[in-house]
């Protein structure tokens, strides 16, 4: 017993040593969340009390603890909570707001942006956070070719150069850009890393370590007491395949208006579970406090809620990302076949006919149990730049949306007008030359996608188009898409708040311009205007002006029908009544995944 006590004491001492004691008083520059303050997006939230443990289910293990070499959300879920950047996306509105920096100024020519850091802040181990850490993160990690950094590509300016980062004093950094580039304000939000802990692993700063050492730093098997961060949480325990425990960072600079330091909870325990089924069982068993449900879970959870005291939140938020079908306008271009089909696919009238055959309402009803939103363009629905929102610019409404209503009769008349009619009496429409027209639809082994494809296949066949749906392996599918060897492919892309992140997809020479790669050499008027609008949207710091460019761009995309959009599921989650503020701030994830997690604002009402 005595030994156990000593061991517990030692462990407690170690964890204190790793995490430091916290601020004596609230720093003057603290980041205050206006919880309960009228006129803000936080007005309907409550002030909380500190203490307790929040239990969250998580489907995958993290792959590392290194924010900058992480490539997927299973890792960034944790690293985002440990490392915050100069700016952040507002949890609720999606707008860019100050975080580690308390503010910034943009020079008149738009080329110099000066950030003022909050003063007196500390890392979780008690060391001061200064401009040196920002410089280290940009110049020695993000822009260092030796580091396999996931966020370097996001920093590239339109002319291929990178912003130049300089220190003016301990709390001021200056970025100089070669050209005006609004998305810089978004990409500048990368997590700032502690120089005093990590400089030793960067070959450029410490030639004693081999090149590439940083990539193998802060891997899962590290001594977790060495982890140092500036975000609300720090990982303190990892049981492989079982759980990740995060404890409050005693030096997190977020406070509520009453002067209580955030986060409210002492700990988050992430239960790593096999799949959604087990996740739901754990929620029903009271082992986890929150759960991101699927539409099919609603009939089970809704009746159970009142007795077990949990709420099922059916939000009106759709997820980020896009779901689409992509008729390959370059079909047969590589081997010189399918010339007539290619010509047909390139004809926007044909693509319009296809769009009129997509029954998005049925897709929402049958595939998403009625909990989804139809999509018409390439910018994610929750983005403040989505043309159907009125966050910037405006006034704009959904009336700007370009809908191709489900209308088989109109589709049939369009097909007839194109000469795509049944010429040999076999019941299937043929190409204008009389050659048979078969359309192959492919997607991968994903139940939702397969369900979409079956509906599409049925509707196309009902209109006399000989559509054949086939499931292929994901990698084969992606190869088909990139090699432009597919016919019609159904897939989706991840999205975000920043429309410029779609540049790779929608500009004529983008590497994901999979509906017509040949547009790079042979762009049409619409392609050229889209390219131009993308540049214009990025080339101004006036958000309302940028919105207008992006609005035109979204409308053009919708008319162009390169990718023909389907629908996005609504964001659903459930939480026990005792999790305060969870009604607004799903602590699991919001549609945005990383950017909207409000674990630091939730609290335990039972305390």
């Amino acid at each position, binding site marked *: 017993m005595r030994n*156990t006590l000593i*061991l*517990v004491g030692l462990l407690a001492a170690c964890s204190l040593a790793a995490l430091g004691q916290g601020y004596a008083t609230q720093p003057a520059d603290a980041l205050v969340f206006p919880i309960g303050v009228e006129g803000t997006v936080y007005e309907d939230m409550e002030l909380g009390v500190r203490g307790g*443990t929040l*239990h969250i289910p998580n489907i995958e*293990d993290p*792959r*590392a603890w*290194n924010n900058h*070499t992480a*490539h997927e959300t299973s890792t960034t879920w944790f690293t985002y909570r440990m490392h915050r950047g100069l700016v952040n996306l507002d949890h609720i509105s999606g707008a860019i707001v100050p975080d580690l920096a308390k503010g910034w100024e943009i020079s008149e020519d738009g080329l110099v942006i000066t950030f003022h850091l909050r003063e007196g802040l500390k890392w979780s181990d008690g060391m001061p956070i200064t401009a040196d850490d920002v410089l280290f993160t940009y110049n020695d990690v993000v822009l260092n070719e030796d580091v*396999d950094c*996931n966020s*370097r*590509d*996001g920093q*590239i300016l339109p002319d291929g150069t990178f912003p130049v980062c300089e220190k003016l004093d301990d709390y001021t950094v200056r970025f100089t850009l070669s050209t005006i580039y609004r998305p810089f304000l978004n990409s500048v939000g990368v997590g700032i890393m502690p120089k005093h802990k990590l400089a030793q692993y960067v070959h450029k700063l410490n030639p004693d370590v081999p090149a590439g050492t940083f*990539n*193998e730093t802060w*891997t*899962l*098997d590290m001594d977790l007491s060495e982890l140092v961060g500036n975000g609300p949480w720090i990982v303190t*325990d*990892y*049981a*492989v*395949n*079982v*759980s990740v*425990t995060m404890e409050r960072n005693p030096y997190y600079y977020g406070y509520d208006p009453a002067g209580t330091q955030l986060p409210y909870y002492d700990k988050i*325990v992430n*239960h*790593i*579970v*096999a*799949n959604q*089924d*087990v996740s739901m*069982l*754990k929620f*029903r*068993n*009271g*082992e986890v406090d929150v759960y991101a449900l699927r539409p099919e879970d609603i009939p089970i959870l809704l009746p159970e809620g009142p007795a077990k005291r949990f709420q099922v939140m059916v939000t009106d938020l759709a997820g980020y990302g896009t779901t689409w079908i992509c008729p390959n306008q370059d079909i047969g271009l590589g081997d010189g076949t399918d010339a007539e089909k290619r010509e047909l696919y390139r004809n926007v009238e044909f693509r319009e006919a296809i769009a009129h055959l997509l029954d998005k309402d049925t897709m929402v009803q049958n595939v998403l149990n009625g909990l989804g939103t139809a999509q018409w363009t390439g910018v994610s629905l929750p983005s403040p730049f989505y043309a159907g929102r009125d966050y910037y610019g405006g006034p704009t409404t959904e009336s700007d949306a370009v809908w191709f209503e489900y209308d088989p009769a109109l589709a049939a008349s369009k097909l007839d007008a194109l000469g795509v009619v049944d010429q040999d009496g076999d019941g299937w429409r043929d190409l204008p030359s009389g050659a048979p027209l078969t359309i192959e639809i492919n997607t991968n082994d994903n139940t939702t996608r397969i369900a979409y494809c079956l509906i599409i296949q049925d509707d196309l066949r009902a209109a006399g188009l000989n559509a054949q749906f086939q499931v292929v*392996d*994901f*990698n*084969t599918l*992606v*190869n088909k898409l*990139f090699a432009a060897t597919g016919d019609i492919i159904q897939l989706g*892309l*991840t999205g975000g708040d920043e429309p410029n*992140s*779609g*540049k*790779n*997809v929608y500009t004529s020479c983008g*590497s*994901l311009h999979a509906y017509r790669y040949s547009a790079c050499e042979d762009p049409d008027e619409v392609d050229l205007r889209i390219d131009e609008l993308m540049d214009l949207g990025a080339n101004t710091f006036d958000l309302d002006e940028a919105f207008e460019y992006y609005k035109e761009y979204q409308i053009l995309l919708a008319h162009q029908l390169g990718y023909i959009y389907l629908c996005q599921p609504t964001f659903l989650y459930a939480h026990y009544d005792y999790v305060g503020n969870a009604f607004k701030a799903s602590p699991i994830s919001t549609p945005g995944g990383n950017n909207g997690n409000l674990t630091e604002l939730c609290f335990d009402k039972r305390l």
Partner: protein
Amino acid sequence: MLTYMVRRVLYMIPLLLIVSLIAFSLIKLMPGDYLTTARFNPQITAETLQQQIERFGLDKPFLVQYWYWLRNVVQGDFGTSFDTRMPVFTTLFFGNRLLWTILIATTTLILTWVLAIPIGIYSATHQYKPSDHVVTFFGFLGLSIPNFFFALVILWILVVIFRVGNYGLGVGGLVDSRFFDQPFSWAKFCNYLWHLWPIWVVIGTSGMAGLIRLMRGNLLDTLSLPYVQTARSKGLKESVVIYKHAVRNAINPLITVLGLSLPGLVNGSIVTAIVLNIPTVGRAYWSALQRQDEPVVMGGLLFFSLFLLIGNVIADFLLAWVDPRIRYD
């Protein structure tokens, strides 16, 4: 016997080489690679992808890649995981995975054998009686229910029917979260047992049916042999006839099965481990396969093949040991 064993061990080297070449070819034949998902990310440029391809050596011809891999393996370097950036075997075994795997597999193995052999004997000695049918029925049921489904059903019954949450008990995983930062205690030990029994039931029942059938069949064959009749006509007690004479001979083929279950100790029960949330080597290997994390897939495969070959050798050795008629010299 010794020369035979040495020869068998030496045979393993070319065999492992062939296995590794086939495995490497199969990985390369699969469409796509580790970077396919990255290729589909709008935020990653073509230049960055190219750098990654070169960093991982994925741009080299197939045989060159294999040669590099082999050369490093011979020098004891199995490479670094593309995904976790940790050495291959750290990725597979890290976090007590190997320990848990062996612990769970051996306990399940012991439980399965301790139950299956007597049931098999009972079933053979009560051939075609109602009790034989009942035992056989449950044996087949265990064999035919998919493990992942059975595991989910158990969890569902615990949560929805028995409402174990009301008693503060969790499902899945190794131990309830309230014990995470607690020192080892009797209560914690019991909680571990509470989490382990579904694993024993799921994996155990799936392996038991086969063993029961095997034991039953072998014993029935043996019981019909003339020497058993001789023993009976000598007036020996039935229990002596069965346990001393018949079972000892009938159990021989099962020894081979025991040797061959060795590789199953480290790579078996992947799906059950995933559903019940248990850290096992098989689960780490499964993740690597899904992500096409080549170094881990190759390292793991070599490791599992080694176990399979060792299992074979042990089975041969055990057979020679229990059956005096078998000699390899």
